[in-house]
């Protein structure tokens, strides 16, 4: 974005503020060598913005700066900005920053004729020269209106002052109080400072305060027109720019497992894409947090860094509860791979939460971020307002190639109400949407899961039962009984029933086999008996034949013997033989 805008306006040189997000919105910073007006109501952070501009200029961009204050004195200011980590005393000693406290008291003055504010110019000029300043802050020059009775002179002198700053090539920030009604500033400073006007705003909505920044005007350059939430945190000013309209982030083809093997199976067998966003939605108690925790645990087990933003439970509670289902978050925390940030959603506005997340993500560099749940964050906001801010977060994480897991509580507790209605319209931003449902059947409530969508991969269309036990979480095939999905005990009963039926059938088969075997055995026995009989018969036949032969032989022998004895009558014997 930064590159593109500077391409559009290459001639206008800009002075980077170094403030996270602001340079992106303004396409590189404030107009160099010109004054810019920062206005807002009391407590909006005008001074903080101006001070960070100076400090970053002095420390990061080699441009020393003069801070001329009209409301606080140097000691007060130094103490105030120390909380942001800025050491003004040190910077002043290094001649990087000059502080000048201008104080005027109406009661001390007596006007006795014509005068001008050359003294102010001299003081400013002296401060600039003493450190070779390139940047100037006047905070808040409007205090002069209260101190000096002659506004005509003051206005003329201010006009001259801003002209003078321009001539000297100072990049300046002039702060101003927000005026009544539609007036930008109370004393119309915008008339003199016309190059760049930034408005800061603090709004209370539903008892939650949110700070916003808007670039009202930036002459000669393209700039973000929207209101951007900002935060004054431990590292200074932080503006959350919207970049999601660009949709030009790079994508990864790398897949990361979810930590639940069966779930990966449903997601084309390999899990989700790195850097994609996953929405896990479901009614209360469907196991959304468990899926998020499991994902984080598996990421940390691979040595990746993860951030867990929790808006329902405290850190200790999460660690304890997840341990009860076999998910160990304590080890990665100890190793420094995981950070759990728990806070109340009502602590600050949604935007400020998101700015805080931004800051943490930028400092921690995680590859996985879980938000549990995003629906809580938006409790106090209507959906129309919540969407763009959530979009910013989702988009930011995508841009940074961080895998995001967002759980979302659906309002409907039962399976019949459409859970699609309560997704804050973020589902369109999500790459993968896992839908968890409670199924109540036969006096039991069970969890089911299915992949509502998953961009860029073939994914299962099956409903699986989601089982959480003390050994972890797993997915089990559901049973389809009639036109119903069976889960839990009903599934177990159904399984038992099927098992019983198959056992019975098996036994029947065995019985039949046995019957057949025995019948065959009987036949075999019969065959054996008959064979024995046949054998006996044949033995008889042989015996008879043998007997006959023997008899004949004996007879023949006898006859021959007799014939020998009688003296040769063989012919007779042969005739006898033939006759037989």
């Amino acid at each position, binding site marked *: 974005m930064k590159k593109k805008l500077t391409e559009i306006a290459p001639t206008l040189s800009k002075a980077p503020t170094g403030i996270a997000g602001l340079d992106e919105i303004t396409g590189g910073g404030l107009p160099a060598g010109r004054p810019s007006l920062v206005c807002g109501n009391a407590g909006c952070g005008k001074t903080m913005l101006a001070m960070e501009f100076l400090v970053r200029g002095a420390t990061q961009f080699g441009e020393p700066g003069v801070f001329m204050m009209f409301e606080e004195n140097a000691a007060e200011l130094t103490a105030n900005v120390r909380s942001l980590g800025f050491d003004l005393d040190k910077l002043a000693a290094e001649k990087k920053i000059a502080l000048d406290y201008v104080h005027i008291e109406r009661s001390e*003055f*007596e006007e006795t004729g014509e005068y001008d504010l050359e*003294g102010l110019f001299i003081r400013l000029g002296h401060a600039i020269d003493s450190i070779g300043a390139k940047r100037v802050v006047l905070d808040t020059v409007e205090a002069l209106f209260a101190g000096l009775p002659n506004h005509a002179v003051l206005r003329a002198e201010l006009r001259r002052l801003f002209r003078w700053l321009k001539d000297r090539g100072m990049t300046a920030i002039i702060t101003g109080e927000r005026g009544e009604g539609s007036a930008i500033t109370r004393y119309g400073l915008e008339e003199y400072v016309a190059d760049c006007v930034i408005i800061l705003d603090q709004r209370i909505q539903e008892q939650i305060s949110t700070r916003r920044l808007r670039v009202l005007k930036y002459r000669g350059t393209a700039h973000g027109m929207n209101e951007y939430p900002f935060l004054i945190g431990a590292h200074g000013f932080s503006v959350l720019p919207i970049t999601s309209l660009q949709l030009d982030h790079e994508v990864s083809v790398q897949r990361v497992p979810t930590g639940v093997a069966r779930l990966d199976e449903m997601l084309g067998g390999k899990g989700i894409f790195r850097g994609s966003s996953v929405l896990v939605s479901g009614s209360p108690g469907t196991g959304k947090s468990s899926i998020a925790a499991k994902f984080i645990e598996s990421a940390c087990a691979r040595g990746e860094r993860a951030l867990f933003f929790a808006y329902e439970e405290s850190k200790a509670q999460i660690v304890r509860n997840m341990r009860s289902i076999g998910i160990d978050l304590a080890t990665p925390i100890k190793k420094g791979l995981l950070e759990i940030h728990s806070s109340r959603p009502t602590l600050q506005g949604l935007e400020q939460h998101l700015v805080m997340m931004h800051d943490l993500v930028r400092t921690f560099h995680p590859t996985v971020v879980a938000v549990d749940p995003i629906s809580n964050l938006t409790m106090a906001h209507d959906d129309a307002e919540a969407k763009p801010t959530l979009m910013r977060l989702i988009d930011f994480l995508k841009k940074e190639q961080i895998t995001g897991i967002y759980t979302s509580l659906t309002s409907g507790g039962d399976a019949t109400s459409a859970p699609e209605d309560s997704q804050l319209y973020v589902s369109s931003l999500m790459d993968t949407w896992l839908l968890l449902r409670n199924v109540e059947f036969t006096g039991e409530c069970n969890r089911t899961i299915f992949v509502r969508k998953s961009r860029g991969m073939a994914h299962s269309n099956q409903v699986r039962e989601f089982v959480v036990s003390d050994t972890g979480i797993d997915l089990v095939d559901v049973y389809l009984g009639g036109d119903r999905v069976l889960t839990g005990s009903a599934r177990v009963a159904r399984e038992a029933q099927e098992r019983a039926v198959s056992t019975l059938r098996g036994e029947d088969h065995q019985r039949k086999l046995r019957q057949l075997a025995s019948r065959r055995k009987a036949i075999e026995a019969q065959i054996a008996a008959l064979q024995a009989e046949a054998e006996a018969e044949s033995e008889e036949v042989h015996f008879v034949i043998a007997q006959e032969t023997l008899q004949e032989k004996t007879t023949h022998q006898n006859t021959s013997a007799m014939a020998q004895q009688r003296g040769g009558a063989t012919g007779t014997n042969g005739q006898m033989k033939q006759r037989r």
Partner: protein
Amino acid sequence: MSVPAPRTARKAGDPPAFQLRLYVAGQTAKSLDAFANLKRICETHLAGQYCIEVIDLTKTPQLAAGDQILAVPTVVRRLPEPIKKIIGDFSNEERVLVGLDVQPINA
């Protein structure tokens, strides 16, 4: 830069009751006018009781912060306490006297 103020009718070693410091920006006609006006008023009403120290901020800009000078010309009444400031070219004598808290001498 400090210009010794005219001292008249005063015993040596006795510090003047009115110690004034005039801040100007350069030796401009305006500055000179202002100095002339101031001196005339002082001579009239505070003869012998005052001294004026003139500071040219274009030459010593670092002195501006000390007395919180914004407008020029400014005269600061350092003594007697409390410190008072008068801005302008001192053309309005009445207001200068109010500012210095001096009773006018009717002459």
